[in-house]
């Protein structure tokens, strides 16, 4: 340090070398006339270091993160096959030149989907499922590759079907009837199909709601399997936004005795349908391997109300989003460059503020009548020139119904 203490640039370089170019340095670029200060220049942690420290303290990943509980996924293309494909493509592509040059070459998306299912579907769907937090909420962070292409669709009218892909939005009314599921399987293999919603449990939010469960499916024919839980259509509650509905396909090693999971005959009791994929998987871990995945999202529509009233036979709940409250820092004795009245209002009790608003509201209005509509040019009248600036601001807020004065022109809530 002493050797290169003469110039700031030299000192900086020395510091950077010392911190191995990983840490940010706090250098005071002031030349001291007589001698440099005694204290060592502070070396602060870099942003990425501070971020990783924060994450280590605050974002604890689930215990099983990084474990593959399903089948291993190996890409079907290797060097040899891709060389063959390249040769084949080079031969056949000449026929498409004219269409490409006239910009009329539109590839067949269904054909792409079919080939993609073989080539890279497990890897892609795994990523999207991770993005939607499915593995975190259902398998405690353990992931699996959906190596068996599971095709699920809702056949709600004669003309169209709605396929379930990997997170697409399906209106609740289109999912009223039991979906069709199809997957390729060997004759003697056995499968279990489970449809559950990680967000649908209204009583215990950390558990799931079971919508449909079929066990011991022989050779990919879902209709021949044992229905352990009848299909219940999705009912995303009003105001709660988009809920996930997940189909997981398990491959069985042997026939399973799933009677303990059988729900009662009518099966519309939501408490009985409370479900945890993790508990289910842990119980049958030795004989079940997750192999297929499809999921969709759904939002409230008018069909949900009739589901609650006619099928679940219960009142329909309705929710309202509450925004996170504004951050209020510690109150200062002498705030600098703040309007004092607004600063003090921030720390007042809401009851005081609302009392003030109510008094203003009832001063010259009849409480038995509905509140008058907000006048269009309420703030057009000039205030006397002697009005102090803080009062001017307050009166303007009152007139235009800003901040807590909003309720002056608002209908009272039920």
């Amino acid at each position, binding site marked *: 340090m002493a050797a290169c203490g003469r110039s700031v640039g030299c000192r900086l370089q020395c510091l950077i070398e010392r911190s191995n170019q990983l840490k940010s340095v706090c250098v005071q670029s002031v030349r001291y006339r007589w001698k440099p200060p005694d204290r060592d220049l502070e070396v602060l942690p870099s942003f990425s270091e501070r971020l990783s420290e924060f994450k280590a303290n*605050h974002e*604890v990943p689930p215990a099983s993160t990084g474990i593959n509980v399903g089948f291993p996924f190996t890409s079907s293309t290797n060097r040899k096959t891709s060389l063959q*494909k390249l040769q084949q*493509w080079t031969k056949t*592509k000449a026929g*498409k030149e004219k269409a*490409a040059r006239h*910009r009329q*070459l*539109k*590839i067949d*998306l269904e054909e*792409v*989907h079919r080939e*993609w299912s073989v080539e890279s579907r497990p890897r*892609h769907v795994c*990523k*999207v499922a*991770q*993005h*939607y*937090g499915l593995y975190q909420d259902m398998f405690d962070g353990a992931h699996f590759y959906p190596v068996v292409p599971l095709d699920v669709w809702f056949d709600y009218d004669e003309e169209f079907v709605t396929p379930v892909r990997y*997170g*697409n939005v399906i209106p609740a009314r289109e999912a009223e009837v039991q979906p069709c599921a199809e997957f390729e399987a060997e004759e003697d293999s056995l499968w279990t199909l489970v449809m559950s919603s990680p*967000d649908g449990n209204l009583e*215990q939010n*950390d558990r799931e709601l079971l919508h449909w469960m079929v066990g011991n499916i022989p050779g990919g024919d879902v209709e021949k399997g044992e229905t352990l839980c009848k299909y219940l259509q999705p009912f995303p509650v009003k105001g*709660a*936004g*988009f809920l996930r509905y997940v189909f997981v396909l398990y491959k069985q090693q042997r026939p399973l005795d799933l009677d303990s999971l059988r729900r009662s005959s*009518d099966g*519309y*009791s*939501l*408490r009985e349908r409370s479900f945890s994929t993790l508990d289910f998987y842990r119980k049958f871990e030795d004989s079940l391997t997750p192999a297929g995945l499809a999921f969709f*999202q759904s939002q409230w529509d008018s069909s949900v109300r009739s589901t609650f*009233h006619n099928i*679940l*036979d*219960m009142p*329909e*709940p*309705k*929710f*309202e*989003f*509450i*925004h*996170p409250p*504004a951050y*209020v*820092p510690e109150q200062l004795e002498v705030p600098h460059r703040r309007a004092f009245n607004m600063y003090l*209002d*921030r*720390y*007042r009790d*809401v009851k005081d*503020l*609302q009392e003030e608003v109510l008094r203003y509201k009832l001063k010259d209005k009849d409480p038995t009548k509905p509140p008058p509509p907000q006048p269009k040019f309420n703030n057009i009248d000039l205030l006397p020139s002697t009005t102090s600036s803080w009062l001017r601001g307050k009166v303007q807020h009152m007139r235009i119904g800003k901040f807590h004065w909003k309720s002056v022109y608002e209908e009272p*809530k039920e």
Partner: protein
Amino acid sequence: MSNLLNLACRGLVSRLSPFTTHPQKNVIMPFTCRCLNTTSNRQANQSPNNDYVVSKVYHNRNPRNLEKLALARKRLGWKLTAPRKDYYHKLIFTLSNRHTEARLEHFSGFTVLTVSTREWAVRDQLYSCTDVAASENVGRVMAQRCLESGISEVYFDESELDAASDKVSVFMQAFKDQGISLTEPDMVEGHYQPGINYDGYNRYAEAKAWQDDYQKE
């Protein structure tokens, strides 16, 4: 989760009005809601869900829910930051000498979807991996995959590429044809009201714990 939850609640101010009759209502987190009322058209005496209690605090665990409703907080960045940071999902289009690629990136850095002419599923039906037809078809496949994964609004920065070029314009047009918006909606922010509810319920409908100084949370 509880750590995160505590973090989100720092400086927590409840806005339940003291004039409402009963402040304990149903609430969600991070999608925090409260139950307003329930509707019913029949006497549910024989119902299997007679004793089913809808929880006061409803937590929608879907991590994409708030983003779809534009209620999640966006990174704001500085005013003149380039490239901009205020997005949830960004569409990135890359034209290299040999291949055409598109990928969808979440603001956390996670790559959600990719389409490339390196994929044989796409390349098989193309004439060239770098021409205008390749750009258009990569756009079509990407738009299809976005819809299949429930993403209907993405952020696409035209200024990073030459938007007047044919390759970029047909790529963008492919998204518009599928009905995907290339701009994301503005973040919905709550209405600011001054005041602290010192002795009320918090947004999770829980009574406040006694503290000597609430401002020092």
